[in-house]
């Protein structure tokens, strides 16, 4: 749990075939992770448009994580390879604009990796919480 007590808002995009199933497995095994993490199901990580990531930050998300099948295991054979390039470039650009690089992450979680899913979310939530509120990529009008 975060030291500063800040409860971040985290959007997790999970691909239907691996990571969403991995999240389900974490649930089946009752592995705790913070409720700050909210999952959006997409067919494949390659469905995640950089615009969605920015949108989440605009609306007040403090961290965005994209989870997909491990490279080479994509249900659609190559989707996550495109994700990997797109997000590498997007995250690099956000960093270039001075936005904390820890607020974005891509993680490969297979359907069998419930424990990894929970551990990833715990770690990510903690990291994001320690950064506090996202102030550099927010839209004040969207704040509560």
């Amino acid at each position, binding site marked *: 749990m975060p030291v500063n007590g800040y409860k971040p808002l985290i959007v997790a995009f999970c691909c239907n075939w691996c990571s969403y199933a991995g999240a389900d497995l974490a649930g089946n095994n009752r592995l705790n992770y913070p409720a700050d993490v909210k999952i959006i199901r997409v067919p494949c990580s390659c469905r995640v448009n950089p615009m969605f990531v920015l949108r989440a930050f605009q609306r007040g998300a403090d961290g965005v994580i994209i989870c997909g099948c491990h490279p080479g295991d994509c249900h659609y054979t190559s989707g996550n390879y495109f994700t990997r390039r797109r997000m590498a470039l997007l995250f690099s*650009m956000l960093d270039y604009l*001075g936005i904390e690089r820890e607020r974005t992450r891509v993680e490969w979680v297979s359907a069998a990796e419930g424990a990894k899913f929970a551990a990833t979310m715990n770690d990510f939530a903690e990291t994001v919480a320690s950064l506090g509120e996202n102030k550099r990529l927010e839209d004040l009008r969207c704040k509560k």
Partner: protein
Amino acid sequence: MQKVTAKTLSGKAASLLNAGEVKYVLGWKKGEFDYDITPALFESAEELEKDFVWNDFSCANLSKYLIKYTRSLSGKILVFLKPCDTFSFNQLLTEHRIDRQKVYAVGVPCSGMADEKKIRENADGITAISETEEGYLVHTLYSDAPAFISKEEALLEKCLSCKGWAHIALDEQIEGEVFAPSADRFDQVKALENMTPDERYHFWQNELSRCIRCNACRDVCPACTCEKCVFDNPNSGVENKAAANSFEEKMFHIIRAFHVAGRCTDCGECSRVCPQKIPLHLLNRKFINDIDSFYGEYQAGLDEGSRAPLVDYDTGDLEPSQVFDWRDGQNA
């Protein structure tokens, strides 16, 4: 001053027009001011004779106009392309945006272009500019004696790191010397990367906050040629006519840079036309530099039909999580 004269170009165009080889000529003509040379379509030798301009202010990259004209006009169009413009032209061919059959592309050797903004910075009320071998004589309302600015001082940003390569994919090439490359175009990108995140944030906050969303960057960009831009599309979820706050300023420029990533030929038109002097090319060059270093050197438009890096992959690509460590290692 350009080594190839306007006469050479207009003469070539006129003879092709008269011979019926082409029906239109896409070139440049004078606008309101001497430094304001704009793209223009010519249909006759007379028009060319009267209005055609080729000088250090003929910066405009004409390739983008071919999308519109090859669709709406029914004859062959002669277009003049500087070496750097040919990359855009080629990239548009790769993306099937231009009907090659309807274009007669003529390569023009370029001796480097002038940046009107640099000239205007030191001179108000410009009435005329004349070119000399070494630079420009600027006549103003306020002084009888023209001010002098050297060619080096006035050189356009993109020309500082001129690709300096030969023309590609042309029907014909005018003989002549091509401007030689000089600076490393990624110097400024690397300098920014080496700043602290706070410094970077404030740098960009300062730059982008000046954006007035005039859309000039988008309209001039040869890669921004969408039938309908996502920022104009109510269903895209990001429709946005005017940026209301710092988020939207960033959103627009990040998405714009991302949309052209891997397709941007680094023609520099965006920064050239920005009335707010925002160094937009630094966003594009960031992506180009990242692409080059993560996935191997790639120059959009160099080879017609090449696969842009964002529609390609390698199973051994760098993980997003490795990007920063890796780059920090490179820059160290």
